[in-house]
């Protein structure tokens, strides 16, 4: 069991309010990802849940029990840190088993649990090594091992993959997601990498300046962003946001069209006409940056190689069913 609820949680450091007011509920067994720009309070929120920071107000319920006055160990959560935070002078075995030892478990039981966790994480050959004798990915796995042996109610991850190279990041991303599914333990995962967020999450929480902008499944956020911030934040390359007469013509302050939902024609047809300023050829895809009068630079993603070059005039047609409209306050018009 491990459901977590935040009710009106606030956090201020001195005079600055970092988390003005957050309500959130995390269902048992789900994988929830916090995303948002740097400094928006993702880590702070995670640390409030962990108990590493005191809340300034509100309630944090774990399995229905308010834990704001309990220390981190009592909450029954475990955390994987960005720097791994392994104990440098302890072997991998002791690193993983240390929490259990502190909890006063008998030696044989600790050994069994550590061996089991090491088996899951392919760490068995390294159990007697010190952290400094391991690669980055292996250290990461030790940190995860330390989190899983305690059989916590939930895992908390704070950008655990940001110190790894791109290939390893993809691999560990898969491993973490698979592990979480097989254990069925609730997980809260902080990242600023939206690919991680989209691929791993059951539910994404988009944060901006300490406020929850939207909560939903990855596809929800992609297809039905509630507001301009989420529309601009989720998706890569970014959604084209167009103001002015074009938007007004559709009855909105701003309209949004994703680069992959715009078709390119070269026969003079198309809703908008523009000149290609830059074409980026990635082989599988081509990103076109098209200067459209009244709309600015529109990014378009086309599949395959169309032989389009800078300077060519093209017609652009957004898929009308997938145009997002936003009102003056930046809220989606549905």
């Amino acid at each position, binding site marked *: 069991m491990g459901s977590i609820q935040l009710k009106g949680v606030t956090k201020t450091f001195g005079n600055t309010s970092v988390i003005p007011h957050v309500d959130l509920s995390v269902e048992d067994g789900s994988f929830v990802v916090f995303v948002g720009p740097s400094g928006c309070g993702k880590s702070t929120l995670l640390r409030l849940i962990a108990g*590493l920071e005191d809340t300034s107000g509100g309630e944090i319920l774990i399995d229905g029990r308010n834990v704001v006055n309990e220390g*981190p*160990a009592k909450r029954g959560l*475990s955390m994987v*840190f960005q720097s791994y*935070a392994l104990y440098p002078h302890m072997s991998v075995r002791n690193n993983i088993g240390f929490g259990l030892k502190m909890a006063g478990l008998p030696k044989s039981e600790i050994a069994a649990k550590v061996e089991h966790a090491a088996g899951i994480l392919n760490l068995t050959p390294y159990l007697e090594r010190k952290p400094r004798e391991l690669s980055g990915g292996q250290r990461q796995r030790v940190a995860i091992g*330390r989190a899983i042996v*305690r059989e916590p109610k939930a895992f908390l991850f704070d950008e655990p993959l940001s110190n790894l190279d791109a290939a390893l990041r993809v691999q560990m991303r898969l491993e973490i997601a698979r592990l979480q599914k097989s254990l069925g333990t609730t997980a809260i995962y902080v990242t600023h990498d939206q690919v991680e967020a989209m691929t791993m999450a059951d539910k994404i929480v988009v944060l901006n300046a300490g406020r929850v902008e939207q909560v939903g499944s990855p596809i929800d956020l992609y297809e039905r962003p509630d507001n301009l911030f989420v529309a601009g934040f989720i998706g890569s390359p970014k959604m084209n946001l167009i103001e002015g007469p074009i938007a007004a013509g559709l009855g909105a302050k701003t309209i949004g069209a994703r680069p992959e939902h715009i078709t390119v024609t070269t026969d003079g047809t198309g809703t908008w006409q523009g000149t290609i300023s830059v074409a980026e050829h990635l082989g599988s895809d081509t990103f076109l940056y098209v200067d459209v009068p009244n709309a600015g630079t529109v990014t378009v993603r086309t599949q395959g190689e169309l032989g389009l070059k800078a300077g060519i005039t093209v017609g652009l047609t957004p898929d009308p069913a997938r145009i997002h409209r936003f009102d003056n306050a930046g809220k989606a018009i549905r």
Partner: protein
Amino acid sequence: MATRQSTFLGRILAAPSILVLFLWMIVPLGMTIWFSLLRYNLLDPGNESFIGALNYEYFLTDPAFFTALGNTLLLVGSVLLITIVGGILVALLMDQPIFGQGVVRLFIIAPFFVMPTVSALVWKNLLMHPVSGLFAWIATSLGFQPVDWFSNAPLFSVILIVAWQWLPFAALILLTALQSLDGEQKEAAQMDGVGPFSFFFYIVLPHLARAITVVILIETIFLLSVFAEIFVTTGGGPGLATTNIAFLVYAQALLQYDVGGASAGGIVAVVLANIVAAFMVRLIGKNLEA
């Protein structure tokens, strides 16, 4: 110094300074060895003659030598123990966020800047004096008999003074080590449910191991040759109670005017220091690696 090439280059670049250091060391050492083989007494000038190892024989068979050796080891050992245990406690205190931290730190470091002779005089005349000392005053105002420190516990008194001088050094080095403890590690320990005592013994102490080693090695070098504190307070007495090797050599040379014997004593002290150093490096040197 990864490749053979760079090792070679490194050696060449270091060679001149090593050569200078070597000469700097070898000339006085050579002269001392030479004097130690002579009959050379300042009361009988012009009559130096080569007598081989006789000076060593006298020095090493003198019962005073063994007393002095014991005193030296006791002094070094006790001061190390007090300064390290005390230094860790002081460092832990100084690491707490307290009001006026900067000033407190300055005060705690102050003893290290006081000259040994001065601090020994302060302790002797202002603190430990059986009639006019502060300790005596405290004892009498509480209705106890004042302790005559230098007659009743002479070596302990010297140890106390020397430890007081070296405590700040240990505390300072240990404090810097303490402050380099990674914040996320503390938090990881919090998540692991580690209590304050377990945290200290399982995480802080191993983290401090290297700094403690450095303190032990540096202090040992200086403590083997403690002299001023003994000279000022007890003059090596009563009897031989506070005579260490350094003081014995001094007594040999300047109280008995026996340069040859003192040189032999000096060489013995050098050999002893090296034995202690080798022993220490064996024992704790592995903490310094990697």
